């Protein structure tokens, strides 16, 4: 972390001249050398070991907590009537939301031809997959009889017992399951050429066999690349509506119910915006230490981070708008129950959670109006951490305030998590970071092949028409005609 590598500021917007996306004059070789160095160095940095040790400890705690839960039943959590969902579903929605930024970067920004995505898409996609794994864990363990969790799937059985397809909870199973599968495919397919790079640079026979198997015999054929690119584009086009559908379906878990504070049509867009907001904060949380630690500052430049900050600012404003709109609708609906629950959110027993959420989500992200905040890694990290906390509290506030004060005042109760729930949440971070640290060490962290396509050297003009004048840097953010062969 305490690296003293110089920070190159490529965030300036100079009219008529595009900023470099990859700094340090890295060419094709330089990009591969820089990225592969993370994997090729004999020992990872000491900070990696420390982080890995902490993550592994937390993962062990997660395992112990789940075992304790299975042996004793869900009574070890603080859930009861009326608050039947607490930390479990809060964590589920939180982690699913984190994943969405990865898909936004890899699919939506790809369709919009935002070239800066190439530096961060690989690890953002990894983040997606690990976050969805953490998310999938919670509904799986909160079902009570965990050994019967497979009943969620439509499996033939002698009881002719099938899932109820009219329930949003079942839509969730399909949405999150599909999301995980498609994200995994997208991630793996994009990684095949880079796994082939590792195979070809492997120094030991074992590595060669492992990466050779994973690379599927990729040999860089242009005919292969042609179909590969088409498949990648199609996957991006499929993943884009998918990612919007996933958090919409997650929001249906609440919106389709009748509970005040949940039964609202704003939930799908509000949840999607919040997911991207929280996800980008997590991208920053991961990217800032990773680029320092693994010497990727020339590939994940300050400009990439600044772009992420801008998205955090915009989605933060959307989330703030949704918070206001919820109050407006509570008032405009004229429903006394809606009105009550929103007054209770801001001034009831969970007001502390509500105002933490407002401060962290709406308040902290406003710092990004200032360029100084968008280019200072410490400030970025601070805001990102605040947003991570705030987005967790957002889900907590939605779930717990509505449940704990439902229609029947005699059954109201103050939900209090047990130590087991708190440790399970901490443990899920252990799972996430363990997987992420392993990924950093053993898999290509940056999409090397994709980064090369945005390098100025990838443009054909220089070699093909050596007498023409070519601007020295052409790694543009966006230039639709760049790859078209010049008219002859």
């Amino acid at each position, binding site marked *: 972390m305490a690296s003293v590598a110089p920070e190159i500021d490529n965030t300036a917007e100079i009219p008529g001249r595009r900023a470099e996306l990859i700094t340090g004059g890295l060419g*094709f*070789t330089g990009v*591969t050398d820089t990225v592969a160095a993370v994997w090729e160095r004999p020992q990872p940095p000491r900070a990696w070991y420390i982080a890995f040790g902490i993550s592994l400890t937390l993962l062990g705690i997660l395992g112990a907590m789940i075992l304790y839960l299975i042996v004793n039943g869900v009574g070890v959590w603080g859930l009861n009537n009326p608050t039947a969902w607490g930390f479990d579903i809060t964590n589920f929605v939180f982690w699913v939301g984190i994943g969405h930024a990865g898909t936004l970067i890899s699919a939506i920004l790809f369709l919009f031809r935002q070239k800066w995505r190439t530096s961060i898409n690989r690890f953002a996609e990894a983040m997606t997959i690990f976050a969805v794994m953490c998310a999938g864990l919670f509904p799986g363990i909160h079902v009570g*009889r965990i*050994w019967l969790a497979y009943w969620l799937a*439509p499996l*033939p059985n*002698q009881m*002719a017992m*099938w*899932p*109820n*397809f*009219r329930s*949003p909870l*079942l*839509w969730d199973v*399909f949405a999150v*399951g*599909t999301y995980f599968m*498609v994200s995994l*495919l997208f991630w793996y*397919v994009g990684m095949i*050429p*880079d796994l082939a790079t590792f195979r*070809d*640079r492997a120094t030991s026979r074992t590595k060669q066999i492992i990466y050779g*198997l994973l690379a*599927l*015999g*990729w*040999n*860089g*054929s*242009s*005919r*292969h*690349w*042609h*179909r590969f*690119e*088409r*498949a990648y584009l*199609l*996957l991006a086009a*499929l993943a884009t509506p*998918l990612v919007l*559908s996933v958090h919409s*379906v997650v929001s249906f878990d609440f919106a389709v119910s009748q509970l005040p504070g949940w039964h609202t049509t704003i939930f799908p867009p509000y949840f999607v915006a919040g997911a991207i907001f929280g996800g980008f904060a997590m991208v920053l949380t991961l990217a800032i230490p990773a680029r320092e630690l693994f010497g990727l500052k020339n590939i994940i430049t300050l400009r990439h981070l600044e772009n992420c900050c801008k998205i955090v600012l915009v989605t933060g404003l959307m989330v703030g708008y949704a918070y206001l709109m919820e109050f407006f609708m509570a008032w405009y609906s004229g429903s006394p129950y809606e009105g009550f629950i929103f007054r209770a959110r801001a001034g009831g027993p969970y007001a502390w959670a509500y105002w933490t959420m407002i401060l962290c989500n709406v308040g902290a992200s406003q710092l990004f109006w200032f360029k100084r905040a968008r280019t200072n890694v410490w400030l970025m990290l601070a805001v990102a951490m605040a947003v991570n906390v705030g987005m967790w509290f957002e889900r907590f506030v939605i779930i717990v305030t509505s449940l704990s004060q439902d229609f029947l005042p005699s059954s109201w109760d103050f939900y209090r998590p047990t130590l087991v729930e708190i440790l399970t949440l901490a443990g899920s971070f252990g799972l996430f970071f363990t997987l992420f640290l392993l990924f950093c060490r053993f898999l290509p962290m940056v999409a090397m*092949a*994709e980064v*090369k*396509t945005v390098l100025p*050297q990838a443009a*054909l*003009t220089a*070699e*093909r028409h050596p007498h023409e004048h070519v601007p020295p840097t052409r790694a543009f953010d966006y230039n639709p005609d760049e*790859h078209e*062969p010049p008219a002859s």
Partner: protein
Amino acid sequence: MDVAAHTGTVANPPRLAALLAEFASPGALVTAAEQVRDAGYTRWDTHTPFPVHGIDAAMDIRRTRLPWVVLIGGTLGCLAGLLMQWWMNAAGPEQFRWVPTFLQGYDFVISGKPTFSLPANIPVVFELTVLLAALAAVIGMLAMNNLPRHHDALFSVPRFRRVTTDRFFLRIDAHDPRFDTQRTAEFLSSLGAVAIERVETEEAPARWPRPLVVTLVVLAALALFPPLVVAKARLSKSPKPRIALIQDMDNQERYKAQQANTAFLDGRAMRVPPAGTIARGEWRDDAHYYRGQVAGDWALTFPPQIRVDRALLARGQERFGVYCAPCHGLGGAGDGLVHQRALQRDTPGWVQPTSLHDPLARGRPVGHLFNTITNGIRSMPPYGDQIPPADRWAIVAYVRALQLSQDARLEDVPPDRRAELR
């Protein structure tokens, strides 16, 4: 421009598979590709570390048909999603009796909603459409690219390892109709190649290592065991209790009331209540009503709760018919059906039930009769558990009436009814 040869094994003379030309930049490769295309070669390819745009036109690569594969996949997903939800939630078993039980649908009405309603089915249909389309894109891409293919003659060229980093290669296959080792090599050099390599293939492709094959065969054989065990368990019957890995409260560890239990001195699992324990609602303080006693003697009168009237006698008659008449007979002479049956069968040791008109019985106080019904007498069993106290008193009243009827004088009959006796 050197033409280097990589020698294979002596036993298996290598065969020339292709010529490989290396270029330093994507631009040089595209220019070379255009000339190879124009020279009329058909079996050739370029290999690059990233997709070089413009190479498709230079190589005349036809647009892939992959999107159609994806369309088919997505359509299948959509239809499968619809069919699945209709079958599992809307197709009742009664229309499809020929389907085996484990595949039958179940039209279960939930919250009064229709069993099949498109709006509720859209999310799952959408997700399955995306899932199958994505799978079709990936599997279709790999299949069309003939991947995975781990054995490729190109990989034996050390220089080719940089194709995934920073070098650009053009390969012309030896089985191209226009291929000629010498002329093609010269042609490639003329295109500005940095280096030209021979790609050679061995006649016998590399075989799988023997330990790996043995391990895989053993693992495959072992993998057959679990399904075989499952199949055997499903097809056979056993008198033993089923193996429940997780109890699910089916079998609970506890003693049943009549089991033996060495933990207690009396060896019984069930505990008897301490002497003098009275259950709720069983507090019976009123000796006259509950036991037929007044000051320790048999009561001579009915208890105050019992009002002797026609209704009581009618009730007593009806109960007498149920509980008493089988032995004592409807007339109370001790000649009930049980007795007659016993005589028919010559039951040894049979004692005729007492006639209620016996002077002894006639002389008993009502309290004694009540006690006899409650606790039994001689060979008569107790009826206290079967007949509530009020009914017992009703029977006593009826028995008294019965006794009176069999030993009455004319004066006992009301004057207006005497005529009926004649």
